[in-house]
């Protein structure tokens, strides 16, 4: 081993307080990045996961400007002939004013989003039916599933209660329809249809006077990596129908652009934290240089060059960087494993989608390692400026 590296190691080992302080500074910097990543990327991925499961599927097909007027059955069948497609289902979105009377008290109208689903196809292409905690899905034409928030705002409606919805059809006429509540839907973190109501798609088409029209087709794949391929194949196959098709990544990108900016900002703050740990290393290294002034003078007197002194303290930075990056990454991985196991899900909160992003983990470790070395350059440079005579007078 190079004598400067050996001496650097000995100096640090005999200054355990300084070594532990410097290693902690690096480790905590890394841990902050890991915690940020697990929470915010986990949250983002969890939202994307639920968007895919409940609303968009792997591929989401709409019309550029209007409703899809091609037969939904024909489109679903077209998709389901492709081996990579597990299922496809039509959806139709609208809105209505809702009111209900409970225990003789009428709850005033307010507008709610209405989602029309084909219940038998939807349960194959989406998992929204699993969020129906009480009752069942909208298997009959006059049934409705209320979002838990809607049910609460309507005075605590339960399965079997009646609600009245007022729609405006395609010709501008009000259409009033009464439904029986067949289920209440509630989802972790409210990512499902907690703020909407779900009805049978044929009922909604009939009310809106949009027979054979569809708002969107949700396609679920058994191999999600083929999403772009399926999307492109679909668009090539229907070139003159003004279809718009998006993969879940594209749908999420446009829906969560602000969230992504937030993650970038949080990451930036994390890296600022890591930079401040570099300042801690500078301070600790300066203390070591100060406490080793006499030794530096002796080394210079017996022939060590400025370059040797520089390398000695840069080796210290390397040692701090290696130990700090290893400890910090280990702590980060332990935290990530814990988060992956528990999904950080508390009292019905959104279960995080925790993944090991190895390139990010490596990048964080390497960045902190590089920062530790960079942080040792200034103290090392200061050490080289010590004159042997002056340095040896220090006791």
């Amino acid at each position, binding site marked *: 081993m190079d*004598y400067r590296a050996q001496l650097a190691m000995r100096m640090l080992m*005999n200054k355990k307080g300084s070594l532990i302080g410097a290693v902690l500074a690096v480790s905590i910097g890394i841990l902050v990045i890991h915690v940020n990543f697990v929470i915010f990327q986990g949250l983002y991925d969890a939202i994307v996961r639920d968007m895919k499961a409940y609303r968009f599927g792997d591929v989401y097909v709409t019309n550029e400007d209007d409703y899809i007027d091609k037969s939904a059955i024909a489109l679903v069948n077209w998709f389901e002939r492709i081996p990579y497609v597990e299922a496809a289902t039509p959806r139709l979105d609208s809105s209505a004013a809702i009111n209900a009377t409970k225990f003789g008290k009428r709850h005033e109208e307010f507008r709610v989003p209405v989602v029309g689903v084909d219940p038998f196809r939807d349960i194959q292409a989406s998992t929204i039916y699993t969020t129906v905690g009480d009752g069942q899905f909208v298997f009959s034409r006059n049934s409705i599933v209320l979002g838990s928030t809607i049910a609460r705002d309507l005075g605590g409606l339960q399965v079997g209660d009646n609600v009245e919805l007022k729609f405006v059809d395609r010709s501008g006429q009000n259409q009033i329809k009464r439904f029986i509540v067949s289920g209440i839907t509630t989802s972790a973190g409210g990512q499902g249809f907690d703020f909407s109501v779900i009805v049978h798609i044929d009922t909604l088409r009939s009310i809106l006077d949009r027979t054979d029209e569809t708002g969107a087709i949700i396609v679920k794949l058994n191999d999600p990596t083929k999403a772009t391929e399926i999307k492109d194949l679909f668009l090539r196959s229907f070139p003159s129908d003004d279809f718009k098709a998006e993969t879940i990544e594209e749908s999420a990108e446009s829906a969560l652009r602000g969230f992504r900016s937030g993650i970038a900002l949080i990451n930036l703050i994390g890296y600022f934290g890591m930079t401040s740990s570099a300042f801690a290393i500078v301070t600790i290294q300066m203390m070591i240089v100060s406490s080793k002034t006499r*030794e530096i*003078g002796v*080394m210079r*007197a*017996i*022939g060590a*060059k400025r370059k040797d002194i520089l390398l000695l303290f840069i080796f210290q930075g390397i040692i701090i960087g290696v130990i700090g990056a290893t400890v910090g990454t280990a702590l980060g991985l332990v935290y990530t494993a814990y988060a992956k196991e528990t999904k950080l899900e508390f009292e019905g909160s959104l279960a995080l989608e925790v993944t090991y992003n190895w390139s990010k983990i490596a990048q964080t470790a390497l960045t902190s390692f590089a920062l530790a070395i960079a942080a040792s350059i200034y103290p090392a440079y200061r050490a080289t400026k010590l004159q042997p005579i002056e340095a*040896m007078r220090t006791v």
Partner: protein
Amino acid sequence: MEVKNLNKIYGEGDTAVHAVRDVSFSVKKGELLLIVGSSGSGKSTLLNMIGLLDRPTNGKILIDGSDTTNLKDSDLSSFRNSKLGFVFQFSNLLSDLTVLENVLLPRKIQQSYDTAIADATKLLRTVGLEKEIHKRANKISGGQAQRVAIARALINKPSIVLADEPTGNLDSINAETIVQLMKSMAEKLGQTFIIVTHERDQFGRVDRIITIKDGRAFEGEEPRRMEVTV
């Protein structure tokens, strides 16, 4: 070694201090030269310049025929490492290293590893510390530390060993041991020693003595102006 018209002035103008004044002398190989003088006479300043740890205001220092006056910092370091050995008043061992590692350090700086451990062990045996080689430097006594410092000074087989008050921090028994050790090294190895001390009596009979008074050098113990003879 040859020292020619060496001067060292600290400060400027009215506040200037002339620490060393026009000192010239030469040292023969194998000579044990004692530089004596009272505290503040300039003897340590002179030794620092001879040891290339401090630059003279003017004058020349030639070691093995090479003029060291205009050497760059890195060349001075190499020169100190290969041509000079140092023994300081406080042994100045590196407390993070063992006794053996301290002795090996000048050789490691030189990056010359052949026979290094054997040479260091032999030197430590010579100074009577073969049993202490793996002890940490801060776990040995002051007298032992000074003996390690002598071994460290000799490891690179320097032209000259410079010792600044080597017994100044020791009790009389340890001081006597160190003095005898240096004298025997000078005799057996033909090693040149320049020793600065204000404890002249501890050294008994030596090859030469130079007395420094008010920055001026005088041959012998009486303050008469020295004329250089080679």
